[in-house]
C-alpha cells in the first residue's frame, strides 16, 4: 500500500510542532512587552490640558513649593488640585494678558471649574493615601519622577501593583529624610553627595534607609487590605 503522505511531510510536521512552541512563546513575550510598554501603561504620555501648565517653570525655575498648590498632600489621601483662586493669586498680577491663561481667567470670571485631565490615575479599587507616604519620608519625586524638569506633566511610573510593591517590600531603598520630601532635586546619598542625618553621615542609600525605617517606624505593609477594600 502506497504511503499517503510524502516523506517531506515529516519535516513540515516537525517544523510546525517546534515552530508552534516558539510562536506561542514569542506571542507571550510580545504581549508582555506590550503590557509593559509606555503605549499601554501610558507612562511618559503627555496629556492635553486646558492650560499648558509647566511644572518645570513653576516648581523648578521659580522654586514654588509643591504644597503651595497641592495643599492637602500632608492631610488627606488626595494631594489636591489648586482651585482657580490659587492660580489667580499670582496671575491677577503677572501675565495678566497672556492668551495662554485665558481659560484660567474665564474660570475665575464665570465661576466654572477648570477640568484638568488626570495624569496619575489608579483604578477605583486601589486606595492610595498621599499623607501617610509624605509623613513617612517618601518624596514626591520618588513616585512622580523629575517633576521639576517636566515642561508638560506626564506619568513617570507604570503605577502597576508590582511597581508599588517594589517599594513596599523594600522601603529602605526609597526613603529620604522628612525634611527633603518636597525637594524636587533631591538625590539619594552617594560619595559625591553624602547625607547628614541625625548627626551621622551616610554615603549609601541602603545604609541610610535601614536607619530611617527604624527612626520613622516605617512598616513594610503588604496586606491586601492596605490598598484594596
Amino acid at each position, binding site marked *: 500500500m502506497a504511503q499517503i503522505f510524502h516523506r517531506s511531510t515529516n519535516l513540515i510536521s516537525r517544523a510546525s510542532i517546534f515552530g508552534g512552541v516558539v510562536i506561542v512563546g514569542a506571542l507571550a513575550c510580545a504581549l508582555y512587552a506590550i503590557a509593559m510598554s509606555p503605549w499601554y501603561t501610558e507612562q511618559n504620555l503627555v496629556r492635553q490640558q486646558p492650560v499648558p501648565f509647566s511644572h518645570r517653570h513653576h516648581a523648578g525655575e521659580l522654586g514654588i513649593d509643591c504644597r503651595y498648590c497641592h495643599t492637602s498632600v500632608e492631610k488627606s489621601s*488626595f494631594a489636591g488640585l489648586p482651585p482657580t*483662586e490659587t492660580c489667580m493669586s499670582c496671575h491677577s498680577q503677572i501675565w495678566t494678558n497672556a492668551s495662554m491663561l485665558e481659560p484660567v481667567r474665564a474660570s475665575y470670571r464665570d465661576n466654572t471649574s477648570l477640568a484638568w485631565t*488626570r495624569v496619575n490615575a489608579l483604578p477605583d479599587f486601589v486606595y492610595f493615601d498621599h499623607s501617610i507616604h509624605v509623613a513617612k519620608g517618601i518624596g514626591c519625586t520618588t513616585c512622580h519622577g523629575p517633576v521639576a524638569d517636566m515642561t508638560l506633566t506626564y506619568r513617570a511610573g507604570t503605577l502597576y501593583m508590582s511597581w508599588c510593591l517594589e517599594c513596599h517590600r523594600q522601603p529602605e531603598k526609597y526613603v529620604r529624610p522628612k525634611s527633603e520630601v518636597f525637594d524636587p532635586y533631591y538625590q539619594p546619598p552617594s560619595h559625591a553627595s553624602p547625607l547628614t542625618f541625625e548627626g551621622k553621615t551616610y554615603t549609601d542609600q541602603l545604609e541610610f534607609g535601614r536607619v530611617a525605617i527604624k527612626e520613622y517606624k516605617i512598616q513594610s505593609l503588604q496586606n*491586601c487590605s*492596605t490598598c*484594596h477594600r
Partner: protein
Amino acid sequence: MNEEHKTNNSVDLAAVRAKLAREDGKRFWQSIEELADTKDFRNFLENEFPAGPEKASDGINRRDVLKLMAASAALTGLSACTKLPTEKIVPYVRQPEEIIPGKPLFYATSVPQAGVGTGVLVESHMGRPTKIEGNPEHPGSLGATDVFMQASVLTLYDPDRSQAVIFDGHVSSWSDFTAAMDNQRIGLAPRGAGMRILTKTVTSPTLAAQLKKLLAQFPEAKWHQYEVCGADSEREGTRLAFGKPVNPVYHFDRADVIVSLDADFIASGRGHVRYIREFSSRRNLAAGPASNLNRLYVVDSMTTSTGAMADHRLPLSAAAVEDFARQLATAVGVKVAPVGGVELPGDWLGALARDLMHHHGSSLIVAGEQQPPFVHALAHAMNAALGNIGKTVEYTDPLEANPVNQIESLRELVSDLNSGQVEFLLILGGNPVYDAPADFNFADALMKAKLRVHTGLYNDETAELCHWHIPAAHYLESWGDLRAYDGTVGIVQPLIAPLYDNHSQHEILALFTGDGDKSGHDLVRDYWQSQWPKKETFEAYWETSLHDGVMVGTALPMIPVSSNADFASQAASRAVSGGTNALEVVFRPDPSIGDGEFANNGWLQELPKPITHLTWDNAALISPATAQRLGLARGDYVKLRFDSREAQAGVFIVPGHADNSVTLHLGYGRSRAGKVGTGPGFNAYLLRTSGSPWIGQGLSIEKTGKTYSFACTQQQNTIDVEGHPADEETANADRRDLVQIATLEEFKKNPAFAQIPETQVDRDLTLYPNVKYEGYAWGMSIDLNRCVGCNACVVACVAENNIAVVGKDQVERGRAMHWIRVDTYFRGGLDNPEVYYEPLPCMQCENAPCEYVCPVGATTHSSEGLNDMTYNRCVGTRYCSNNCPYKVRRFNFYLFSDYTTPSLYGVRNPNVTVRSRGVMEKCTYCVQRINAAKIRSEEENRTVRDGEIQTACQQACPAEAIIFGNINDPNSRVAKLKAQSRDYGLLEDLNTRPRTTYLARVRNPNPEIRD
C-alpha cells in the same frame, strides 16, 4: 431517617409540637421549617447558596454551556487588556476653607420621626451626605441610631422623589405657585374662612409659631393634625390619668423591674433609641455574678422586639391586655373594676405584683401605643401607686405645639370637607389618602375641597388628587427645628442644597404670613433670635447650637402631676373576648418601613424584620395554634374581612404570637410609592377604621385557595451545627449550641458556663504554622445580653459598605447581601418560646477555612488578623463561601449594584469599592475605618487609641452590644470583655479561632415563676 421529610415542603404543626415535646425544651431552633425538616430548609442548611430553580433560560444545553465556557476562558485574559479610562479632575474655583478633598466633614442635625427629633452627625464627602451617625451630645441619641435614621440618607438620593412643582398634573414652577398662593391669601382675607391646614405632628417651635401667626391673621382658618403612628393613645392616656396631656419621660436605667403592657419601647415610640441604651445598661454583666440585672416582664400579642428581650413573656391577645392591666392594677393597690376572663398561668400575676411591690420606686410600667388610653392611664396609676413617679418616670408638658387627639382632628376635617366648607386645603406632609382610617373615605372627602395643595417627598396617592404638589425638602436639605423625646430642641440644618425644586414646610407657610421673601434659614434663626433675651449673645448661642446639634436649656422642665382617680372606675371599654374563638385584628407600624413613609427605601424593604425575618412584604401574622385551628399554613393566601371591609394577604405563622389574634403591619400595598415601594405586600389600612385604629374584634379569615410566596431569610444561612454524619459526633452535637445561655442563678453557680471544655481544641492542631500577631490584632466582642435585635447594625453596615439591594426574588433564593445578619433562635415550645438574638458578622477566623480554598488568592490573611477580601482579584469560584461554616460570605450573582442611576452615586461611601457582578464580598471589620485611624495615628506618631476605631455596626448600636478593638492591648475594652467568663466562640471545635466572640446571655427570671 429523615429521607422522607427531605422531599416534603409542608409543615405538620402537630408533628412539630410532638417533636419539641420529646426534646424537653432544651433545643434551639430558628424556624418552624427547621423543626419540620422541610426540603427547602435542608437545601438552605446544606448549601450556602442553594441551587434554586433559576428562571429557565430557554434552549440552553450542555454543548452551549461548554462553548460558552471555552469562549469565556479565552476572553478572561483579554479583560485585563483595557486601558484605564481618562478621568477629569475638577477643582473648585474658590475652595471653601474647611473642605479638604478626601476628608469627610461631620455636621450636626436632627432627624424627624413622627414629629420628634433625634440628633445625628452626618458624614459629608465634598458636600455630599453619605452616612448618618448618632450625636453623642443629643439626649435622644447618645451617639446611637436606628434603622430609619440610617436609611434616611438613601431617601435623599431616591430617584423616585418628586422633583418638580406640579399643577393639575403638569410641571409648573415655584414662582407660579407663590403667585397662586398670593391670590389665595388675598381671596381668603380677612378672616380665612374655609382655609384648612393639615400637618403631621408638630413639635417644631418655629413651625408652631408660624402656624400661630397664620391662625392669628386668619382667625377662621383651622389647623388639623394627623399622624398614623403618633402618640394618640399615650397622649389621651395621660389626659385620662392626670386631666391634662403630658409627656412621659422614662428612665429605664433606674428601673429594676419593668413591665411592658404591649409596649414595644425597643422598636418604636418616642425616645426609643435612648431607651434601648438605658435598658441595655442594666443588662451589663461587667461586675460578674454580682451585677444588678433588671427584670423585664412583657405582655404582648405579637412577639415584639421587646417581648423577645423579656425574662417572662406572656402572649395575650391585644384586647386581653386591658384585662391583665386591670388585674395587675388591683394587685398593686390601684382601685379599678377588674373584668376577669383572662386566664393567666399559675401565679404569674401574683409573683409579678410581689416583684413590683418589692421594688417600690424602682419599677416601671409602660403601655404600648396599640393599647387604648385607658391602659395607659392604668399604667400611670400603677406607677404612682408604686412610687415610681419622679424616679423611673417623670412628666413634662407635651412635646406637641398643639396636643390634640389626631384621629378626632382628622374626623373634624373630613366632616368640614364633606359639608363643603373647605375652600382651600393645605396638606403639609403626610399621605392621608393612603393612611387615613378607612371609614373616613378621605379621598372622596378631599375632592370636595375647592383648592388642594400637597407637599411631600413623593408624588404619592395624596399628591395625585391635589391641584398643586410641591416637592418637599428632605431634612438633609432644609432648615428647621425639632423637639426630642424630652423636649430638647435640635436644629435641623441642611447638608446639601435641595437636589430638585424642593421647599420646606416653613417656606410654604411663610407665603401666608407675609414672610414669603425669607429663606428657611432666616425663618428658623429669626424665631430663635426673637426668643433670646440678649441680642449681643445670640450669635454665639446660635453657632454653638448648630455645632453641637442641641440647643442648651431647651429641655422641657419636669412637672408635677396629680392623678385623676375617677378614670379607674370606668367600665371595660369593650366586651371581653376571653374564651371565644373570635379573631381580633391588631395593626402595628411595620418594623422596617413604619407607616409606609419609607416604602420606597430599598435598604429598609430588604431588611429582615425582627422575629419573622420577612423582607419586602407584610403578612397576616398568626400563632401556630390558631393556624392549626383554622387549618392554615404559611403562605396560604387568605381574604381578611373586618367590619365589612376586605383585604387579601398571605398567612405567616409566628412562634409565640398570641392565639386568636392576627397582626397586620401597616405601610405596604402602596399604589404610588415609587419603583421600589409600589407593589409589595397588601394594604392593611383598608381594614383600619377610626373606631378600631389599633385593635378590632370580629375579623374573619377565608382561604382563597391560592398561595403566596414570602422572601423570608429566617431559614437561610442556617449554621449547620451537626456538620458531620450523626453517628460521628452525636455526643457533642448539643454542646455546639450557637447560643449559650444561663439563668442568673446558674451563672452565679458556674460563671464559666459558656466555655465548654469539649469544644476546646489543641491550638497546634493545624496544618499551617501558628502565627504570632505583633502590633494590632483586631477583634470584636458581641454581648448577647445587651443586643435587642433592633437591626440598626445591619442598615448601618449597608450604608457604610455600599451594600447592594437585590430584590424580593433574589432574597428568596438566599442571595441577600447583608454582611451582618441578626440570627434569631427560639427555645421551648411553639406557643411561647424564649427568643435569642445573635448578630453575626464575619468571624475573621485566625484559621480561616475560606482562605485555604481560594484558587486565586483573593481572600488572604492580614498581619493584623483580618480576613482580607480583594474584590479585584476574585474570579467568583465561590469555593470560599462553600467552605465558610458561618455562612457570612455574599456573592454578586448579578450586577446588583446600581451603576446607572446618577442620583444613587451620591449615597456611596467613596472609601469602599462598589462591587461588580461575579465577585464575592463580606464583612471586613470596616477596614476603611481601620486604615484611616491607623494613618491618622502614624502621622501623629502614636498608636491607635482604644475606641478610636468604631465599626459601622458598633457605632450605630443603641445597646452598645458590639465592641471592637485591639485584643493585643489587655487594657482595651474588647480585651476586657473577652476576658469575661461569659466569652465564647462559635463552632470553636473546628479550630477556626474566630476573632469575633460572644458574651453569653444571662436571663434573670423570677424564681417564683415556673414557665
